């Protein structure tokens, strides 16, 4: 590495880290965010407000209701209203159990017992879970209350959940949020580093200085790769030590994957910066790219569920590959061919974007 480039990198790092607020934003805030999201977010639907309409003789339904409340998914609804629809409409309950006329217990005695469940479906995810939870509880209650044992079906499945048997949300969320935090710090920083100079007019000075075009590009990108990489051990430590996310794969492979991703993100930021005139544009462009990247990455919605055409877009999202890699390496120990393929894809993306930004630079400079 030549001295000009070294000086350039040094200047860039000093300029970025000179502002103490920037140091906080780059090193402290990611840790806070990771902790916050790791603790707060749960994909399991809980605290569903349940109400049931029953009189004192309807012992089975009362038992179902009490068991639901005693479990971890439901809490009692607030309202005293009798009309089940109104309870939901006025947002006092999320779900209401309504027995057939005469009560659920008596209907069971007659041999045919329809039980109606009203669910507020404005939240689709919640509505889906409510039904499944209640089916379980009702079956169990009937088994215990009526001494009614269903004969076992002839085909039995033994199910095992691999890699995260307790379905601990943090194990799944933390690697995901880690990726999201990293894309914001790396891509935005790299993008703005160039746009800022353009807006201030110092870019002209840089061009007239005795540095080559590649030195400018490397000098403007390598510092942000360094920053992105130095950020990673810190958030990894939070993930592993605070959230007990397992680290089953090789640390070396993990760092290789992170490096490939950081390079891609920085290169992408640089490419975008060649299209932006000022920092306002750079910030909107950042949104234009980062928001879809996060949405397509598979953290909030599984990519497999998307229509095929849209899945193709997701394959062009570096974050999709990075998130897949991180989860695969950390939770599954890294499947050799999967890891190699996706690191290669990330590397290819990095190379293509670097070449593209070289070209763009060429035209911008003239």
């Amino acid at each position, binding site marked *: 590495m030549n001295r000009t480039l070294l000086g350039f990198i040094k200047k860039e790092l000093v300029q970025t880290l000179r502002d103490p607020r*920037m140091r906080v*934003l*780059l090193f402290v*805030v990611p840790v806070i965010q990771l902790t916050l999201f790791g603790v*707060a*977010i*749960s*994909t399991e*639907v*809980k605290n569903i407000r349940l109400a049931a309409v029953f009189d004192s003789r309807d012992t089975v339904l009362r038992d179902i209701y009490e068991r639901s409340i005693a479990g971890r998914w439901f809490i009692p609804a607030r309202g005293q209203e009798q009309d089940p629809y109104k309870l939901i409409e*006025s*947002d006092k309950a999320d779900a209401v159990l309504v027995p057939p006329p005469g009560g*659920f217990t008596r209907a069971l005695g007659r041999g*045919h*017992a*329809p039980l109606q*469940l*009203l*669910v507020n*479906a*404005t*939240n689709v*995810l919640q509505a889906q879970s409510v039904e499944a939870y209640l089916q379980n509880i*009702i079956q169990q209650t*009937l088994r215990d209350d009526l001494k*009614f044992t269903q*004969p076992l*079906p*002839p*085909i*039995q*499945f*033994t*199910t*095992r959940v*691999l890699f*995260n*048997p307790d*379905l601990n949300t943090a194990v*799944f969320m933390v690697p995901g949020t880690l990726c999201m935090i990293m894309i*914001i710090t790396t891509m*935005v920083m790299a993008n703005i580093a160039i746009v*800022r100079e353009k807006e201030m007019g110092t870019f002209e000075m840089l061009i007239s200085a005795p540095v080559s075009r590649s030195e400018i590009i490397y000098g403007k990108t390598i510092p942000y790769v360094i920053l992105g990489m130095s950020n990673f051990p810190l958030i990894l430590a939070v993930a592993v030590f605070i959230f007990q996310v397992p680290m089953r794969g090789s640390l070396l492979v993990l760092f290789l994957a992170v490096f490939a991703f950081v390079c891609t993100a920085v290169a992408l930021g640089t490419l975008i910066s060649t299209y932006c005139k*000022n*920092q306002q544009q750079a*910030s*909107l462009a*950042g*949104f*234009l790219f980062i928001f*879809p990247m996060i949405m*397509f990455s598979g953290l909030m919605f599984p990519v*497999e569920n*998307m229509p095929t055409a*849209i899945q193709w*877009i997701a394959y062009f999202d570096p974050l999709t590959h990075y998130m897949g890699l991180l989860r695969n390496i950390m*939770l*599954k120990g890294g499947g*050799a*061919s999967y890891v190699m393929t996706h690191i290669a894809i990330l590397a290819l993306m990095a190379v293509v974007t670097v070449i593209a930004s070289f070209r763009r630079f060429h035209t911008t400079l003239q």
Partner: protein
Amino acid sequence: MNVFVWRRAAAISHKEVFHILRDPFTLATALALPVFMVIIFGIAIEFNVKNVALAVSDSDRTQSSRRLLDTFGSSGYFLLHSAASPEEAMSDVTEERARAALIIPPRFEMDLFAGRSAQAQILVDGSDNSTVGPVLGYVGTIQGIASQRIGNFTPPNIYELRTRFLFNPELNSRWFVIPGLTVVVMAILAILLTALTVAREWENGSMELLLSTPVQPLEIIIGKVAPYGVLGVIAVAFVYVIARTVFGVPFVGNLAVFGLGCLIFLLTYLAMGILISVVTRKQVVAMQVAMTVGMLPTQLLSGFIFPIESMPVFFQYLTMILPARWFMSIARDTFLKGSSFIELGGAFLALSLCCVLMIFLASRRFKRDLEP
């Protein structure tokens, strides 16, 4: 001297309008981006898990085991591919070629005919929480169907749970996602639109000029927020039309209630952007702060996908300072439930408080700058 003069605020607005018009990229982004995002993700997002890749290792190879595979295949939930051995099925999961594995042991049919329960093993990839729940549910359903088809077993049916899903009877993912998506997109956009405005003036030196005029901080803030507010409302109107026409999302509430909520919500986020700008005074820092505050918390903590009710109690209270959380419930309830203004009173009150607080803080911080 210290009174609020509309004319001066209007003058600032006038200037800001010119600034927006001069930069067609910003204008186009602000108007087109929300529509674009809603269309793309309205198509993309689907919560009903389908086509789960299932690796199958069948060591029994009998008519019964083939019928079991057939039941899985024809259910529509799974896409089957065969693996040579249980180990290979397992490695398919590790290599991300399968989300789940079905392992049928050699004695499957023999056990079934002998009247013992026939066992098969299902391994589910737990590294993606969002598919585990649905997959386990499907497995339960298929167990019932397979027992009936292969083992001629009909469970006695003494009760029946009839579920009625109110406000979204078919559990259409789009009806749920699009109003929420609008909230998230508009929040981030609004914060980014104004986050640089004041910092930019400080960096360019034009702030000194502005300060030498009799204009007051509140006038500057109102003047800067107003044009972007108009821009935001137009963008939401576009999104509303797309949601109704392209995606067929019903709107059963009062449009005026939704519109009012939208306006307060946009003002809150625009003012938050100004506050960031006033406090940081540097565009680089302002942008990083805006991205940090705007992007992840609104996506993850506003109740957009991850329900607030499921959070630990402390965090449920913490989300109350997030204006997007309040407009999220206003938007969803006006779209699907048709809640009235009174029913949403709490959310409106909270949202207005956030709005006033943001404008107040922004002008307070501004004042200190004026009188050093």
